[in-house]
């Protein structure tokens, strides 16, 4: 699994994972629009090649930390639709028993240490996971996902400094989707993002985040080197989010044009591009792809239906899990 994907099975798996993310998000968006989902959520649609290209270069034992825009990372690292939708709806069978929700979804079983509602909040956590790996003599690596906006947080430079000094097996993956909420990246980031990492002595790369093969090839190489103690590394992935900042951000022409959105969706979509590649290279037929898409859509629908009917946690859970080892904190 940890070699850059070269055979059709791996390619199809990458394609499948990208479609699973897009499908998950379309359903989540529908749940919001139909007022069936509590709160707000941030869609990953458009950025699928980033999460999938990276996570397919990882093993289950490798760790990731995710962001407020975290569904894509969660799916890509191996999570199931059912527990994910249950979590988004605050149900007991969710990955976090409904306590975390979209912004805190975590999947311990697959090494996803969790989404984070504090921008940049998980940079230390990922670096710490890499520290554990090194200290305990393991060879797993940690990938820290964060956005272009998060590069403004000083924490990044603090942990990059330590990671560089101590050669920690961590990869900082900056998803540059051009916007930090309602503001263009160039208005909030001076100089060069990759140069910032390089100034700390960290090897940094920029890659087309819409090209899953490029992302995967680069990451596979860096992961292998990180396992050998050559880390840390930094990757800036150029990508785009299709939806608003969150599902409620509908009228957004004051900060970006429809034309720009259209261009990315039509000309740089990672799924369309990779699908074309699969067909051209003869790795799949149109029919096979359509069948896969349909199967994923059916999976998602079943998971949504299940989650809608699933039960909420019992009220007695409210003071459970405040402390490990104490069943009810307020008893």
């Amino acid at each position, binding site marked *: 699994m940890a070699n850059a994907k070269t055979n059709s099975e791996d390619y199809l798996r990458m394609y499948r994972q990208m479609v699973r993310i897009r499908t998950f998000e379309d359903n989540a968006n529908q749940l919001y629009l139909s007022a069936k989902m*509590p*709160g*707000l959520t941030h869609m990953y649609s458009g950025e699928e090649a980033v999460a999938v290209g990276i996570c397919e270069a990882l093993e289950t034992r490798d760790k990731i930390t995710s962001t407020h825009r975290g569904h894509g990372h969660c799916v890509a690292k191996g999570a199931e639709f059912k527990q994910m939708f249950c979590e988004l709806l*605050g*149900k007991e069978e969710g990955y*976090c*028993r*409904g*306590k*975390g*929700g979209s*912004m*805190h979804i975590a999947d311990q079983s697959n090494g996803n240490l969790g989404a*984070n*509602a*504090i*921008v*940049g*909040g998980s940079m230390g956590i990922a670096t710490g996971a890499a520290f554990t790996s090194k200290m305990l003599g393991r060879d797993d690596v940690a990938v820290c996902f964060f956005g272009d*906006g*998060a590069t*403004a*947080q*000083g924490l990044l430079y603090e942990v990059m400094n330590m990671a560089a000094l101590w050669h920690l097996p961590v990869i900082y993956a900056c998803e540059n989707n051009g916007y*930090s*909420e*309602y*503001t263009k990246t160039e*208005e*909030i*980031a001076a100089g060069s993002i990759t140069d910032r990492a390089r100034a700390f002595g960290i090897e940094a790369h920029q890659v087309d985040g819409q090209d899953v093969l490029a992302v995967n090839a680069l990451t596979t190489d860096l992961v292998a080197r990180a396992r050998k103690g050559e880390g840390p590394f930094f990757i800036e992935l150029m990508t785009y989010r299709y939806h608003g900042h969150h599902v409620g951000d509908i009228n957004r022409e*004051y*900060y970006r044009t429809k034309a720009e959105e259209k261009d990315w969706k039509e000309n740089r979509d990672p799924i369309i591009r990779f699908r074309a590649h699969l067909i051209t290279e003869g790795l799949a037929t149109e029919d096979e792809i359509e069948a896969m898409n349909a199967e994923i859509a059916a999976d998602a629908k079943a998971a949504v239906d299940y989650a809608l009917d699933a039960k*909420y*946690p019992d*009220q007695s*859970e*409210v*003071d459970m899990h*405040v402390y490990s080892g104490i069943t009810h*904190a*307020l008893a």
Partner: protein
Amino acid sequence: MREITLSQAVNEALAEEMRRDDTVFIIGEDVAEAGTPFKVLSGLVEEFGAQRVVDTPICEPGFMGLAVGAAMTGTRPVVDLMFGDFIFLIMDQLCNQAAKTHYMSGGKLSVPLVLRTNMGATRRSAAQHSQSLHALVAHIPGLKVAMPSSAYEAKGLMKTAIRDNNPVVIFEDKLMYQDKAPVPEEEYLIPFGVANIKREGTDITLIGTSSMVQVCEKAADILAAEGISAEVIDPRTIVPLDEATLLASARKTSRVIVVDEGHQSYGVTGEIASRINEKAFYHLDAPVLRMGAMDVPIPFSPALEDITVPTPEGVAAKARMLVAGEMIDAA
């Protein structure tokens, strides 16, 4: 009198003070064109320009620190902190720098700064976007802390805060931004340290902060129907605290409940209750009771979140018990 929303009231206060004093400026994330995610600041950048309504990168410690320095040198920054939960990120600049500068300099330097932020759960925003953290700043000498309970207070307290020569933290309840209240067209300011007796009563005193004032008023309605006369008091600022008004009411009714949306333990309710116990002890027929948010991180699931905060029914139930002399716990 015309009615406007709390959001409009804050907007008006800022606009009026910015017109009045050229040194007032707003700084924070997406405060300009976007007018904040809650749209509280809409229109201000259009009137005052980008020099005075300043969009920052996502670096709360950085722009808070910048504001402290700006305030020390001749301007009056209004810092916009998007969620009250992010106050953890700026505690050093707020509590080690802003709060102490006047004292440490023997009165030579001042920090006339307003930190606007919010509080309040039940918005399905989970543990990192739902906290009410005003107790933390109230504990630090050198800071003043205002907690508007309606559009009227939001406007009057904001104007006072901007003219104050000290760092002032204002917590707005994010669930009240769309709530309307009568607000005069003419200019007014609300002095700090003056509590507001929202409703007179004789049997019990309900002291509430921010949105808990409404909760107390609703509880008072329920109690009134049962023939129990509750006095409702809004301290409006918790630093300085109008002890005299609270004590006078406690001495009159002999029974007090303090209701606040911060976590109950080591929070605001303990302080207010203690002051009343200390200084009105021999007038009390029953212990001063406290109701805060449950001592648990705020859960995402609606089924759990709603039971973490005080409700009118809950307050009424406790009041009923107190008035009936049923305080088994205190035995």
